[in-house]
């Protein structure tokens, strides 16, 4: 199991062809109190860099992009009832969706935990 990161502050945890996607602690801190989230339903095809989810904080709306292409197998239903899970546990209970990867090669563009940390430090 390996976790990768994007410059858009998403994490993607990969096990074989399956992956779980969410936003990082840095991202939730920047967004502030999250009051609404819309995650993709199972069966949705997402494309790397395309719209995948919507997050609304008290302040503003943000689009969440798919870090890789694939077919969504599950959206996190718990977020609908309690969107604040994204604030309290962004890289755990606050995951957004799971998907089956359509192209493993896309992972090579993503950052490691270490690279992501230096990326955040540079902001």
């Amino acid at each position, binding site marked *: 199991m390996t976790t990768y990161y994007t410059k858009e502050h998403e994490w993607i945890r990969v096990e074989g062809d399956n992956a779980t996607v969410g936003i990082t602690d840095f991202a939730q801190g920047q967004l*502030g*109190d999250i009051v*609404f989230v819309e995650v993709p339903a199972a069966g949705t095809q997402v494309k790397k860099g395309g719209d995948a989810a919507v997050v*609304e904080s*008290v302040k*503003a709306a943000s689009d969440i992009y798919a870090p890789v292409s694939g077919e969504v197998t599950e959206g996190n239903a718990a977020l609908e009832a309690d969107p604040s899970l994204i604030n309290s546990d962004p890289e755990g209970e606050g995951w957004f969706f799971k998907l089956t990867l359509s192209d493993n090669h896309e992972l090579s563009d993503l950052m490691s935990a270490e690279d992501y940390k230096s990326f955040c430090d540079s902001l």
Partner: protein
Amino acid sequence: MSDPLDKKLPLDSWHRAKGARMVSFADYAMPIQYEGILAEHLWTRASAGLFDVSHMGQMELHGTDLDAALETVLPADLSLLKGGRLRYSLLLNDEGGIIDDLMVTRRGDHFYLVVNGATKHGDIAHLRHKLPVGIKLDHLEDHALLALQGPKAVDVLSRLAPGVEALSFMTGAAFQIDGARAWISRSGYTGEDGFEISILARDAETVAESIAAQAEVKPIGLGARDSMRLEAGLPLYGHDLDEETTPIEADLGFAISKRRREEGGFPGDERIQRELKHGPIRRRVGLAVLGRQPVREGAMVVDVDGDEVGKVTSGGFSPCLEAPIAMAYVPTASAEPGTDIRLASRGKIFEAKVVAMPFVPHRYHRKGAAK
């Protein structure tokens, strides 16, 4: 993020030391939040919050025949404004559009005005141009402005500036706070009881620190200021009000005093008198949005055919109601509470209902009212 070219508030380093996240607003670096908008919002509604609003424009107007001079630019009846009282008023252009909204206080032999930060330089130029030569306008650039808001604001401030508890809503007086001279009024922009405190910039840090040191008080950022004023149904200039919008459309008819409605003699009087008589074609209303997703400023109000008939000018998530709320301009025929309104935002249709504002009841300390 704040811009390195932003001007600094007198309390800039104080905010940063308190952990504020700073953003650009009205050319200033300002605190958007400290611990988080939701927590700050709820804290202020339950206890007391300290806001730094020093970006706002404070000024004094001096001179002879001041009342008559000021009535040429404001639609207020200043003969009703006694010493130590303030009222909400508007700077209007000749078409009746709103140049800015403001607070005017009669303070002894002069008037004290507080205008919006983003518009203050334009307002000052406008006033200098419109007022007679004999009227002197002093921009109080060496002043800071704090607001202490919330149900416990009076407990806190009466400890530091005894006597403020005797003020009622929309009155003000001179006080000492920590040895500093302060003009304190019982007013604010949150819908709560509270005070606005005008002090010299050099005293700002001492005064802010002694207020913030009280157990009931937390510093509150601009984010919660915005969510609170939205719940209170109070319009924000540049968003809900602008030069294309009249006070009648904006549902601010109360700012046009009775005598002035009859007599006119203020900028835009013709259009405003006409709208008072026949009604405006659109009106600012409050909307309760169905579901949980907030609808933001810029969303369209659409009719059954999908044609745009209005616009959302403020919108967000109400922390107290735990539901999305908004302000919008809608056709007058759709402005009655209970009317269903359809909104389009981000490629989606939202259903909403017109509701009376404020969304959350005001809790002002009015004279004669039970506490």
